[in-house]
């Protein structure tokens, strides 16, 4: 395609690079996912690795495109009135645009739900504190809802069947999710613009991370105390009995107490007396610092110039 303005060409090339890097990142992540077996280890470091691997294609493609390619293109590419872009670049750009649009739709929907949650009248509030605890009729069990101002929601049915001690432990489980930032991680996975989310192996990575996150929250709630662990296991089974009756609740910004697929494993792990150290390390700032250092290194070593040169060559060579 010829006669494109400089701005349009820049946008198309940026989208094409985003899609290409995303595709490459997804393929590498899929290969790396084979290294993880399905065995549940309830390990914080494994949960972090799974999450990092799941989000890597989106983070890599977005950061390289926005922080390396676009600035380099603006800096090095002379403004010309009629740019030429080939079919391959156009197709890649279309794929990149599609990924970003899907992510935008999902983000808008997730934000909408979070805002609606914030408008919930406090008439059924049970406890006010760092996290509000509210009773919700129709909810199957217990859930941590929201990210910025999370609330713990307790279904009327769950409140009825759980003893006070069991309810405390269910709440402790949800508080552990809140401390670990699991709702944010879940939302990032849901909104991540990548190809990995469209294939079964991507789903497997998410399930493995979800399982680890649940077991870690169980471990944090049990706090190494076998009696607490047994009470939590009992609460899990009681809530599971309610689950088929009230079953229409889920949102990407939620952590729910009950997961049918994980129930047996979690209960057996809890009653077996396995003590799992809860996650304490704050890895997000460290990961962000590493990312920034990588971008700085890329600029110092002249990667932007090489990327721009590669772009020129590919635009000239590819159809």
């Amino acid at each position, binding site marked *: 395609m010829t006669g494109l303005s400089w701005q349009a060409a820049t946008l198309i090339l940026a989208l094409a690079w985003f899609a290409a890097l995303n595709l490459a990142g997804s393929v590498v992540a899929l290969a790396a996912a084979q290294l993880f077996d399905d065995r549940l280890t309830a390990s914080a470091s494994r949960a972090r690795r799974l999450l990092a691997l799941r989000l890597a294609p989106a983070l890599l493609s977005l950061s390289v495109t926005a922080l390396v390619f676009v600035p380099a293109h603006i800096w090095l590419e002379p403004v010309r009135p009629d740019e030429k872009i080939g079919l391959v670049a156009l197709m890649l750009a279309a794929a990149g645009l599609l990924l970003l649009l899907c992510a935008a739709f999902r983000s808008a929907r997730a934000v909408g739900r979070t805002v609606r949650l914030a408008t919930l009248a406090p008439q059924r509030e049970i406890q006010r504190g760092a996290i509000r605890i509210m009773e919700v009729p129709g909810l199957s069990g217990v859930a941590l809802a929201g990210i910025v101002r999370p609330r713990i929601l307790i279904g009327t049915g769950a409140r009825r069947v759980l003893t006070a001690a069991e309810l405390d432990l269910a709440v402790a489980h949800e508080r552990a999710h809140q401390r670990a930032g699991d709702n944010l991680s879940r939302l990032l996975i849901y909104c991540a613009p990548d190809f990995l989310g469209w294939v079964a192996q991507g789903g497997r990575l998410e399930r493995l991370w979800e399982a680890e996150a649940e077991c870690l929250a169980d471990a944090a709630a049990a706090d190494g105390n076998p009696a607490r662990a047994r009470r939590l296991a009992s609460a899990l089974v009681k809530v599971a*009995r*309610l689950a088929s009756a*009230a079953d229409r609740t*889920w949102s990407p910004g939620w952590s*729910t107490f009950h997961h049918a697929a994980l129930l047996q494993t979690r209960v057996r792990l809890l009653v077996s007396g396995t003590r799992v150290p809860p996650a304490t390390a704050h890895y997000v700032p460290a990961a962000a610092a590493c990312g920034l250092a990588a971008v700085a290194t890329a600029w110092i070593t002249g990667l932007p110039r090489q990327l721009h040169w590669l772009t020129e060559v590919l635009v000239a060579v590819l159809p």
Partner: protein
Amino acid sequence: MFNGLWRPAWLGRGRDPLRAAFGHLERDVMEVMWRVDTATVRDVQERLPRTAAYTTVMTTLDRLFKKGFVDRVRQGRAFVYRAAHSREQVETVVTAGLLTGFLGESRRALPLLSNLVDAVAEQDETLLDELDALIREKRTAARKERT
């Protein structure tokens, strides 16, 4: 692919918000429960705007009890039910989006849903009984150890 991804809020205006949370019969039963103070299964059956078998109404009330929308107390051989929450309270919860999930979305677009959809599947009662027995057994063992 885009099925259910996003729908403007104004498209849903004018609809009864409870339609999102209840089935047809459940909604009718709840309407009866909100009109009367307390009711037995027979009372509800007689007040329904549609014909429904006694056992169907009983099952519906039992489901609503498990969901936490009605309370019940045993009087003689029958249960007497009452609404656990007012219509306004339930509407608030539904309007806040707490009782409608993303189940309308395609599973392909949501790999994460794959196990969450499992979570809403009916749990195997036998498995739950086994797990209950396991917990009881561990509790007894711990008690014996202490004594």
